[in-house]
């Protein structure tokens, strides 16, 4: 009798949580463990790996050439994140003041462009920014500039592409935190004689900080890995961590080094998440948007 009861409760448990647990083990735990193992092995002659144990792959990361790439990646990601906050915060704040219907319409209007292939939209930016492109043509025919501006195949182009691609991940968490803002707090501040600037700095900003932090994580981390944006708008001159990892698997055929770089990128991500949780961020806030 007792065993029968046990079986009865095990079957639904297994059919519901079994598939997801099994899938995560097969396609997340095993692959991540595997690249961790590979990162200590030697490279094979034609790609792949050779058995062995070495710390050389990790030692190679600290080569000055690669350290510069990491530094540039982190810098580009930081600038992208800062620009996303600067552009998205006022935008989202102004939208949140509108009526319920307008708000709903505006938020879905933010989402619509992002259902179109990101590659095609980035390609449009090439047409806009390149030397004989739309913006240069327009500015030259208006006689604002005499020489075409170099807006692509440099850091500027990459940053435009990154900000454009990642800004909805800043807008959405910001929107939900600004929406939740308790208006009575602002009124209280106003009644007590706080000037708008002061009220913003001491009430609005601290209360919406969780949205800013969540948005910053959702922008900063992907920027490090989006190699196709660097490829398309940075040309071959700009390298980010993502491009470096990709090259180890495609051109350099040095899988163990690529694996070591990936572990390094995971550590960087975890460090960012640690800081995020430390300053009061909630992991749950990161899920709903991407």
């Amino acid at each position: 009798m007792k065993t029968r009861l046990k079986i009865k409760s095990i079957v639904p448990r297994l059919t519901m949580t079994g598939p997801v647990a099994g899938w995560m083990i097969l396609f997340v735990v095993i692959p991540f463990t595997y690249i961790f193992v590979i990162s200590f092995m030697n490279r094979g002659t034609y790609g792949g790996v050779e058995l062995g144990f070495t710390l050389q792959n990790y030692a190679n990361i600290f080569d000055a050439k690669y350290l510069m790439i990491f530094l540039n990646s982190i810098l580009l990601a930081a600038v992208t994140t800062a620009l996303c906050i600067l552009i998205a915060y006022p935008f989202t704040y102004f939208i949140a003041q509108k009526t319920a219907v307008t708000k709903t319409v505006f938020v879905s209007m933010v989402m619509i462009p992002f259902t179109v292939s990101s590659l095609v939209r980035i390609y449009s930016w090439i047409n806009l920014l390149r030397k004989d492109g739309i913006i240069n043509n327009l500015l030259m025919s208006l006689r604002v500039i005499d020489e075409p501006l170099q807006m692509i195949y440099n850091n500027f182009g990459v940053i435009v592409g990154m900000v454009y691609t990642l800004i909805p991940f800043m807008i959405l968490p910001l929107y939900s935190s600004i929406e939740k803002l308790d208006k009575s707090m602002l009124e209280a501040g106003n009644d007590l004689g706080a000037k708008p600037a002061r009220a913003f700095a001491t009430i609005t900003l601290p209360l919406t900080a969780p949205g800013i932090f969540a948005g910053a994580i959702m922008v900063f981390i992907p920027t490090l890995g989006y190699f196709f944006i660097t490829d398309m708008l940075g040309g071959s001159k700009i390298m980010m961590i993502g491009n470096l990892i990709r090259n180890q698997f495609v051109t350099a055929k040095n899988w163990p080094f690529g694996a070591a770089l990936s572990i390094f990128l995971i550590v960087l991500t975890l460090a960012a998440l640690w800081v995020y949780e430390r300053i009061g961020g909630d992991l749950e806030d990161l899920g709903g948007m991407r």
Partner: protein
Amino acid sequence: MRRASKKRLTGRMRNVYIGLVFFFLYIPIALVIVYSFNTSKMNILFEGVTAHWYADMVRNRALMDSLKNTLIIAVLSTAASTVIGTLGAVGLSKYDFIGKKLLNKLLYIPVVIPEIVLGIALLCVYSAVRMTLGIATITLSHITFCIPFVIISVRARLAGMDKSLEEASMDLGAGRVRTFVSIILPLLLPGVFSGAVLSFCLSLDDIIISFFTSGPTSTTLPMKVFSMVKTGVTPEVNALFTVIMLCTIGIIAVNTGVQLRKMKSNK
């Protein structure tokens, strides 16, 4: 008086700012639509209106094959991740078991770790077990990153669900399966639906994971476009994406409509 006009001025400035950001968001997709009707093959000047790129698009075998691959992968991975994710979300909320906390943390990995890491990790495993890279490997990979998003959106729905309905159903003699199908599932449907839509869109647009897990004969549409970037993307591609854009806007409209109706009937 002065205060009122000042207020109106700041209000107008706010609208101008909102307009400028929307302009920034929409100009690239507007260009895609405009160039899909342009007679010139070069994506710079607009020379005249034509619809012949739409005819060329349908005749372009390579482009249509990549579209077919993309749709097969998106449909399969949406179906699988929706089933696995919905069952998982319900199971995770109903039962306690060893490793539940760990599983919950694991689900965040595909969401927060850069996609490139998942891409190369899966590539390494596929090559270790000697799986040929193709539609199967891409689909398996897409299911992996879609499951967490289905779980997140179903879970949001579960949080607001009335547990007593489930208990009532069991008390009245309905079995577990019957209760799940006729009580739990209909209540969760909006969450399941938005999880499925999200999965479909993510799979359709994925470039990074597909880059590492696809083989030479299984080019997806984003991969095809990526390979065209160096030589220039043809107007046929703009035409194709204009069509796709209309479809996705349709899906969003239906999704919003369903949610609005649900909101109304809840009132």
